[in-house]
């Protein structure tokens, strides 16, 4: 972590600022000099081949991975700085995982209320009210008292989204939210995400769902070999990608 306090923090429209990020796992270079800015209310769609560094980049944003060097600033707070209380940043950044990671020993309702009570210090009644409203919003109010083990994959992922939203995050990170789902459940999760995007939530989505990108993304970022190969609007990337690698990849994933 190279940043220091004395450096001025850019305070502008960009809610996420990533500068010259490097990250390696042993000999594998997961991220090589990645710089990226995400504006408030923007939906940023990151795609690329497996092992290209997409998830690593996403996990660096809320510091689940510690980058080797470079700087990340989330809503004016330098995440990569050693003295930053990362828990405060994470409370503002919701995350949805590929494998849901619901807490299996708690009911759906408790899954959604726990962090509100322990981190946001909301009283139980308020947390429950928020939880039920959010479960209504993601379309499964009747499952409030079920345990995660009793839900389908799509329902689990919608609970996970509600759990993240309950913290009133400023940013939502999605790490391949539909990759572990059966085909018929993908839509119910994408619908919830689309709603969120239309309400103006800042979202960073790592996914292979090109349909979602077409419908909701403001910007697409193509990541391969740990580098950003190309970025642009869905229009630009789908119609005429500049780089050969992007063309090649898109031709393989699009029918």
């Amino acid at each position, binding site marked *: 972590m190279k940043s220091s306090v004395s450096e001025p923090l850019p305070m502008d429209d960009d809610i996420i600022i990533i500068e010259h990020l490097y990250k390696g796992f042993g000999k594998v270079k997961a991220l090589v000099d990645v710089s990226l800015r995400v504006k408030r209310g923007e939906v940023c769609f990151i795609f690329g081949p497996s092992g290209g560094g997409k998830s690593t980049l996403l996990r660096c944003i*809320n510091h*689940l991975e510690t980058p080797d060097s470079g700087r990340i600033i989330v809503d004016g707070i330098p995440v990569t700085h050693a003295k930053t209380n990362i*828990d*405060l940043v*994470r*409370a*503002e*950044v*919701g*995350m949805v*995982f590929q*494998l849901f*990671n*619901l*807490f*299996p*020993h708690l009911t759906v309702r408790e899954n959604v209320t*726990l*962090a509100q009570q*322990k*981190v946001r210090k909301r009283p139980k009644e308020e947390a429950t009210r928020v939880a039920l409203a959010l479960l209504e919003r993601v379309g499964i109010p009747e499952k409030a008292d079920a*345990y995660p*083990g*009793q839900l389908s994959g799509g329902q689990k992922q919608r609970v*996970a989204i509600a*759990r*993240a939203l309950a*913290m009133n995050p400023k940013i939502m990170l999605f790490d391949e939210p539909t990759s572990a789902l059966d085909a018929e459940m993908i839509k119910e999760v994408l619908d919830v995400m689309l709603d969120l995007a239309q309400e103006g939530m800042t979202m960073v989505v790592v996914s292979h769902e090109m349909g979602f990108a077409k419908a909701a993304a403001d910007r697409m970022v193509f990541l391969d070999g740990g580098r950003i190969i190309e970025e642009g609007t869905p229009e630009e990337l789908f119609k005429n990608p500049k780089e050969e690698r992007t063309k090649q990849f898109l031709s393989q994933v699009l029918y």
Partner: protein
Amino acid sequence: MAITREIEKPQPKLIPWTAKLAEVPWWGLIILLMGVLIVYFIFVSPTYQDAFYFLIAGVRLTILVSLSSFATSLVLGLVAGLGRVSKNVPYYTLSSVYVEVVRGIPILVLLIYFAYVATPLALQFLNWLGTAMLQNLAIGPLVGPANFLANLNIQGVDMTVRAIAGLAFCYGAFEAEVFRAGIQSIEKGQMEAARSLGMSYFQAMRYIILPQAIRRVLPPLGNDFIAMLKDSSLISVLAVRELTHLGKLNRARTFRTFETWNTVAFLYLIMTLSLSLLVKFMERRMAFEE
């Protein structure tokens, strides 16, 4: 449908009768028979009756010692187990040294060491501390505790207390490894999900990881509790009047070896069998759909 039902129908004639016999818990029957026999003797034979009433006080102490040592060892084990998965280097190192050292010394040796070496040493240290405080820091509220420390006497530490401390210290190391295994068996994503919601490491442990880990380690913990109850017989070498020690005394008193040790073994068995029932019950109650 009708055809499948025909096929799935059990065909009792084809199962050899020996296979059926194998399913009968013969060992349980034998134990039950022995138990009934001993209970019968306790009611009828004056020798057994005498032994039983003499030994029953030991049962009480054995239960007391086991419960308090196990409770203490759980706390020790949890603290050390959290250390074994901690990224804090001194905490991790200290926990590892504790586990490796204690695991590597026979419990009997450690018990004797605890009672006759560690306790006197600790007392000497406390006495020295008290004296030093009296000489250098004898101000107001400190005089009382300083006097107390300086005048602590080795006779003041009951052998039972030393035994409990020793047993807890030994088993804490095993419990630490059980807790570590339990914590590490919880998927990494659970910690990540909890942290991503803004919970601290401690909160994530407290509300997410440990509740799940403890459910998973209930069987080995129950196993260790039963093992500890049996190992509490070792403290008879410290002349603590628990069941085994009273057994020795009873034999010396009556010269009835056979009846004495029959009763002792029977009483231990009653305790351990009821414990395994209790553990089974708890496992069932705490189970949840994964």
